[in-house]
C-alpha cells in the first residue's frame, strides 16, 4: 500500500512538469512581445525594456523556464501586474472561502444524496424512486443563480435568518462563518445532490442484483445491513469518482455562486485575472487547478484501493 502511494506520488511529478511547461509557454507563445502584452498598448520603449529585464525575457527560453520553475518551487509565483501584490498572497486570501464552500457542499451533498440514492435503488420502480429521480432532474436543470437568488430573497431578505452575502473566516468564530456559508452551500448542493444521488442509485441497482447480495439476505441479515454493509461498499467506486471530480470542480472555483453571494473565492479571482490579462495570476490559477485535479485523482485511486481489495497496489 505504501509502495503504491509512493509510486503514485512519483507519477504525479511528470504530470505537473508538463503542466508547468504548458503554463510557461502560454505567455511566451502568445503572439507578440510578452512585454508588450503585459505593459499594454501605451507603454514606452523604456517601460518595455524594464519589463523584459524584470521577467528575464532576454535570456534563452530554457534558462527562463528553469529559473521560473526554481522560483515556483520556492513559493514565488510572481507579482500581479494589476495590483502589484505577490500572487501567492492573493491566492492565500482567496483559498479559504473556496475551500470552505467546497467542503461544506460536498459534506451536505454526500449526507443527503447517498441515502437518497440507496433508497431510490432499494425501492426501485416505486413512487419513492420516481420522486428522487424527479428531484434530481430539477437539481440539474434549475441554474444555480436562480436557486441562489430565491434563497437570498426568502431566507435573507424576507425572513432575515441569514445575512444576504459575504464571507467571514472561521478563525473569527464559527457562528458568523456558519451564518454566511449556509445559503451558498445549499444553493450549490442542489446540483451535486442530483449528480451523486443519480450515480449512487445506478451503482446500487447494479450491485443489488449481484449474487452476494442474495447470499447476505439468505443469511438472515436485515435490509439496512444488506444495503449499507454489503451493497453500498461495492457500489462506492463510481460514486467516489463523481464525488472526487465534483470536489475538484468546486475548489477551482464556482464563479456564479461566488458572484451571487459576493464570496471572495478562487473563481472570481480567476475571471478577474483573465479579463485583466494578469498573466502571473492566470498562470498560478492554472497550476493550482491542475494540482488540485492531480491530487484529487490520487485520492480517488487510493480510495479505490482501500474499498476494493481486488485492486492491486
Amino acid at each position, binding site marked *: 500500500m505504501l*509502495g503504491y502511494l509512493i*509510486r503514485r506520488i512519483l507519477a504525479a511529478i511528470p504530470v505537473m512538469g508538463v503542466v508547468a511547461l504548458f503554463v510557461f509557454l502560454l505567455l511566451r507563445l502568445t503572439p507578440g512581445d510578452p512585454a508588450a502584452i503585459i505593459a499594454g498598448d501605451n507603454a514606452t520603449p523604456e517601460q518595455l525594456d524594464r519589463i523584459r529585464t524584470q521577467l528575464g525575457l532576454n535570456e534563452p527560453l530554457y534558462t527562463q523556464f528553469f529559473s521560473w520553475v526554481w522560483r515556483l518551487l520556492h513559493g514565488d509565483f510572481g507579482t500581479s501586474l494589476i495590483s502589484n501584490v505577490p500572487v501567492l498572497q492573493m491566492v492565500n486570501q482567496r483559498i479559504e472561502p473556496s475551500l470552505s464552500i467546497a467542503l461544506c457542499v460536498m459534506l451536505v451533498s454526500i449526507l443527503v444524496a447517498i441515502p437518497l440514492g440507496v433508497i431510490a435503488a432499494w425501492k*426501485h*420502480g416505486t413512487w419513492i424512486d420516481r420522486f428522487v429521480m424527479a428531484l434530481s432532474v430539477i437539481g440539474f436543470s434549475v441554474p444555480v443563480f436562480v436557486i441562489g437568488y430565491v434563497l437570498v430573497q426568502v431566507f435573507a431578505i424576507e425572513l432575515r435568518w441569514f445575512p444576504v452575502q459575504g464571507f467571514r473566516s472561521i478563525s473569527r468564530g464559527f457562528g458568523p462563518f456558519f451564518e454566511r456559508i449556509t445559503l451558498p452551500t445549499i444553493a450549490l448542493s442542489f446540483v451535486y445532490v442530483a449528480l451523486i444521488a443519480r450515480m449512487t442509485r445506478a451503482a446500487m441497482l447494479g450491485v443489488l442484483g*449481484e*449474487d*452476494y447480495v*442474495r*447470499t*447476505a*439476505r*439468505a*443469511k*438472515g*441479515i*436485515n435490509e439496512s*445491513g444488506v444495503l449499507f*454493509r*454489503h451493497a453500498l*461498499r*461495492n457500489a462506492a467506486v463510481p460514486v467516489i469518482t463523481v464525488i472526487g471530480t465534483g470536489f475538484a470542480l468546486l475548489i477551482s472555483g464556482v464563479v456564479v455562486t461566488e458572484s451571487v453571494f459576493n464570496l471572495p473565492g478562487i473563481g472570481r479571482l480567476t475571471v478577474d485575472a483573465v479579463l485583466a490579462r494578469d498573466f502571473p495570476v492566470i498562470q498560478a490559477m492554472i497550476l493550482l487547478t491542475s494540482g488540485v485535479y492531480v491530487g484529487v485523482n490520487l485520492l480517488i485511486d487510493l480510495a479505490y484501493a482501500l*474499498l*476494493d*481489495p*481486488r485492486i492491486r497496489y
Partner: protein
Amino acid sequence: MSELVNPTVNTRPIALEIENLVVGVGKSGAGKKIIDGISLQVRQGETLCVVGESGSGKSVTSLSTMGLLPRDSLKAIGGSIKLVGEDVLQASDRRLRQLRATTMAMIFQEPMTALNPVVPVGKQIDEVLRTHTSLGASARRARILDMMEQVRLPDVKRIFASYPHRLSGGQRQRIMIAMALVLEPKLLIADEPTTALDVTTQAQILKLIRDLQKDHGTAVLFITHDMGVVADIADRVAVMRHGRLVETGALKDVLSAPTQDYTRNLLSSVPSLVPRAAREEAGFNPVVLEANELGKVYRERSMFGKPREVHAAQDVTLTLRKGRTLGIVGESGSGKSTVARCIVRLIDPTSGGIRLAGREISDLSRHALQPHRKKIQIVFQDPYRSLNPRITIGESICEGPINFGTKHSVAMARARELLELVGLPPDAVSRYPHQFSGGQRQRIAIARALALDPEVLVADEAVSALDVSVQAQVLRLLDDIQTRLGIAILFITHDLRVAAQICDDVAVMQHGRVVEQGPAAEVLANPQQPYTRQLLDAAPGRGWDFANFRAVDGSTTVPAA
C-alpha cells in the same frame, strides 16, 4: 446410493414439506404460473435431488422456500411450504430472517460471485453468528475456525482473514458451506452448488456435503441439472419440467425404471462416458491443422524484482486431419482455451508453430494473417454473449463473407442456406438474438462460423452452457455438419462425457501441458496417466449407464451415507 440408504430414513421427522406450491409472475403473482402445483418433502438426513432443465422452476422452488423470490417479479400465490411444521409463506419478514441460517440455509451455484468481494471471508461467516447469536467475539471466532476445519479448508487462520478473490472456486464453495452450516440448520438448500466447479473439486464438494449431512443429520434439497451428480448424491429424485413435477421416487427407481417419457428422454440425453465406436481410421486424410510445440507465456511486469511468468501453455503439439474431431479436455486453468485461442490467433503464441492447411500462420502479421482467417473459425461457450444483440442474425452471419468481398445479396442468400443447415427457419435472418433460445443461438453461432467455409471449426466449450437435451441436439448437428462438409473440428471441453461422444482423438491437458494424447477410445477407456484416471474417477455418475437405465459395475466415487 438409494439401495444402501438406511431404511429408517422414512420414519425420520419431515424437515421440509412443500404442498401444492404455485408461483406466478408479477408483483401480485397474477401472471403466468412459473410453478404450478409442486409438492415435495424432505426428511431429516435425506437428500432430495430436484432435477430439471433450465426454466423448469427448480431454482424458483428453492428461492420460494428461503423467501428470496424477487419481490417485484415473482410471488407465491398458493399452497404451503412447511419448514419443520411452520409455513414460511405465512411468516413475516422478521420471522423469515430469523429462520434463515438458523433453520434453513442455502448455497448457490457461483462461488465466484456469491461472496462479497470486499469483505474477508471469516467476517462474512461471522456476520451469521452476530446476527443470530449472542456469542462473544472469541467464542464466535473459535466456532468459525472449527466450522472451517469441518469443511476441510487448509490453514484456516489465514483463510479466515482472506478476501474471496484470494481463494479458489472450491475453497469459496467450502466457505459458503461453512457459512450455511455454522448454525446447524435443519434444512440445507444447495442450488447447483458444484456446477461451476471442476470435476475433481466437484467430487470433493459432493463428498463433503454427504459427510456433513451424516454428521449433522441435515435435510438436503439439492437442485441440479446434472444426472451424474444426481446419481452420486440423491436418496430420492424429483424431476421437474415447466413448473410441474414430472415424477418423483427413490433414486434407483427413477434411474432404472422411469415411468414418464420426459424422464426417459432426459436420461437418454446424458452422454455416456464410454467412448463411441471409433470411426474409420482416416490416416490418408490430409492434415489441416498442426500445432507444434506451441507455448504461451504471460509475463506480469513488476516494478521491483523479477517479472512473474505464467506458462499458460507449454509444448503443445496437436495434429488434426480433415473430417476428424480432436478433443482437448482438462479442468479450468489447464490451458485448453489458451491453446484454442492461440490456434485461431485471437491471442499470439509466444513460441512454437501453427500450420493451417499447410501454411505456417503463427508468425504472420495481423495483415498477412487476414486471408487465412477464413479457414479457421470459432464457436464460443456462451451463446447469450457471443452474438451482438443489436445486429440481426442475417447481418451477423454475413459480416464475415462480406468482409472477404462477397456481395451482400449473395452472402444473405448463403446465410439463409446455412440457417437451414443448422435447423433454423431461413427467415430468422431478419430477427435479433434475443428472440432465440440458448440452443438456437448456438446453432446461429455455428452457422456464422460456417459462413466462411472454414476447414477447421474450433468449438470452445460450445455445448457447456446448454441443457442436456439441447446439448445432444447440438452435438448431433456438429456430427452431421462434419459428415456433410468434411470439416475438421477442434473441440475444447471440460466434460468427459461430451468428449467421449464426439471426439475421434483426445488430448488431456493439465497445467498448460498435454499429459496424454491418443484415440478417444483408448485414452478414455484405458487411461495411462494418473491425471487422466483421476479425471475419469471424478466424473459424476460413473456408476450409471443412464441411457440404458442400468447401473454399471464398479464403485461410485461418493460413498453412500
